[in-house]
């Protein structure tokens, strides 16, 4: 198993995960995006002042809606899938053989699970996905920086928690060390989430559409991570088997 071996598989698995996430996003999420855009257009048509304020942005639409919800969406999910697949692969390659007695397969599965929680799930709990028409254009700068700050803190805290668990494992055993790591992560991520500003720009947006959109977004993210995790675990399993077979042949040859 080499860094290159695992990374290449991570990128391919990420590509597949992006395709799967696109299917879920397109089938489950897009209807709610369309509902939100229809509401947004109805609202700006009813309010001429808002229309005038939006005009410079609205008038220069370069990509049509049918393209945005198909090829555009596909580009985005595949790009993020490849990036996350690559990261899970590199982090797995770094973690394999370094997490106590965990096998290569177990380590890879754990890295993907931690990645889902730290990169997607925990940031979602503080800053859930919003459909079009919910976020204000005036706050996009601060919303973007707050979101990425939380993602950064969450991911760094998860990496630090794993290192903490590794450091404690010799003295307290794997179970207690892992629990300490989880607790440390929860405290750091919780404090960061509590300190960062809360965003509430929902206004009069219908709650049922908002809820359905958020569920579909979480489903898209879960699909992305699940396919990355499952695909990379299977790839690493094959690599590990091949390696064991080579080692057994070598041992046999040496014993003759």
């Amino acid at each position, binding site marked *: 198993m080499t860094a290159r071996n695992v990374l290449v598989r991570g990128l391919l698995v990420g590509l597949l995960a992006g395709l799967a996430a696109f299917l879920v996003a397109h089938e489950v999420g897009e209807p709610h995006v369309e509902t939100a855009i229809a509401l947004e257009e109805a609202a700006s048509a009813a309010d001429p002042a808002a229309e005038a304020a939006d005009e410079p942005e609205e008038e220069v639409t370069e990509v049509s809606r049918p393209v945005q919800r198909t090829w555009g*969406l596909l580009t985005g999910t595949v790009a993020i899938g490849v990036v996350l697949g690559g990261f899970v692969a590199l982090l797995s390659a770094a973690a394999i053989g370094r997490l106590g007695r965990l096998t290569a397969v177990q380590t890879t599965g754990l890295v993907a699970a931690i990645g889902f929680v730290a990169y997607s799930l925990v940031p979602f709990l503080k800053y859930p996905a919003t459909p079009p028409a919910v976020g204000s254009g005036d706050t996009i700068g601060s919303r973007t920086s707050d979101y990425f700050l939380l993602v950064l803190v969450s991911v760094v805290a998860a990496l630090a928690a794993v290192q903490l668990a590794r450091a404690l494992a010799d003295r307290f055993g794997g179970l207690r060390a892992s629990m300490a790591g989880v607790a440390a992560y929860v405290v750091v991520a919780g404090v960061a989430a509590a300190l960062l500003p809360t965003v509430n720009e929902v206004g009069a947006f219908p709650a049922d559409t908002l809820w359905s959109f958020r569920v579909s977004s979480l489903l898209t993210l879960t699909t992305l991570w699940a396919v990355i995790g499952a695909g990379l675990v299977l790839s690493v399993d094959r690599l590990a088997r091949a390696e064991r077979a080579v080692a057994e042949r070598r041992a046999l040859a040496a014993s003759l």
Partner: protein
Amino acid sequence: MAHTAATPEIATPATPAIPIRDLGPWAVFFGLFAAVVVFFVSANQGGVSVPSGTAVHEWVHDARHLLGYPCH
């Protein structure tokens, strides 16, 4: 001869680790690629876009919303 073959069979073979220095170049190369991609998908708001205009912003617009990145 017998003792060399017996040792690996008794101990559970440890999972071999990849040396960190072998990971470094891949991590740097991939980190740069990832930063560019994530910037274009999630943070490119038109105002700071490299190809001027909002085409990239609009192209991946729905993915940004459905993958939970902040947008309008």
